């Protein structure tokens, strides 16, 4: 690889590590704050970076739990996606990229990204429904306003996974061509 590509490759890895670490911290903080808020409801005023679900907590603990579960689920799946991205960087070899392991990882990232999009859409519809029923849900929307991007990523990765599978077939044939 050229020096520029090498630099970009390493820079992207560092960025992915930072995002993965940030998402893990976010998921952990959300889970901890949820459990804490069950014992100390005052914590619902500032659950994570100013998220205020105190009104929702007062109106319905069950709905509060549902909304929080959706937020935590999305955060955890995002962490898993970036974990797979980091594994991909570790496993992929530029000289021989078409391996079953790489293809499987790309497929996994695609499916998980799609699930983020689906869960985010369900969460968005659910929260909109609550708002119509005059429940106060704060600004939870910021936890899934990137659902379009994840859906697009999953579609693109799905196509790339198909191309990789074909690439593996062609490579196997080439390896067995005398």
């Amino acid at each position, binding site marked *: 690889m050229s020096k520029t590509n090498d630099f970009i490759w390493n820079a992207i890895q560092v960025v992915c590590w930072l995002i993965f670490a940030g998402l893990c911290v976010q998921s952990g903080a959300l889970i901890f704050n949820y459990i804490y808020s069950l014992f100390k409801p005052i914590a619902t005023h500032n659950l994570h970076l100013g998220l205020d679900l105190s009104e929702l907590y007062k109106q319905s603990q069950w709905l509060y739990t549902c909304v929080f579960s959706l937020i935590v689920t999305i955060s955890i799946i995002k962490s898993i996606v970036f974990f797979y991205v980091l594994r991909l960087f570790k496993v992929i070899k530029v000289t021989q990229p078409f391996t079953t392991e790489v293809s499987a990882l790309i497929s996994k990232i695609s499916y998980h990204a799609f699930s983020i999009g689906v869960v985010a859409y369900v969460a968005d519809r659910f929260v909109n429904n609550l708002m119509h029923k005059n429940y106060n849900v704060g600004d939870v929307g910021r936890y899934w306003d990137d659902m379009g991007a994840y859906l697009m990523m999953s579609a693109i990765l799905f196509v790339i996974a198909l191309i990789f599978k074909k690439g593996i077939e062609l490579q*196997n*044939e080439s390896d*067995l*061509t*005398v």
Partner: protein
Amino acid sequence: MPIIVNLDVMMAKRKMSLNELSEKVDITLSNLSILKTGKAKAVRFSTLESICKALNCQPGDILEYVDKG
């Protein structure tokens, strides 16, 4: 696979070992082994030409089609 490679038959007729053939046609032992054991998916014409020249035979002596259908 319907295409059968009779390389070992020709090699026995010409009393040539795999090592000798590998040196004559400049193909690695592993590739010749892949061909001999029928695991090859494709054969280049250049390879077939080299083998036929080394074994003094025709392509039909090495490759045989058997209809399994």
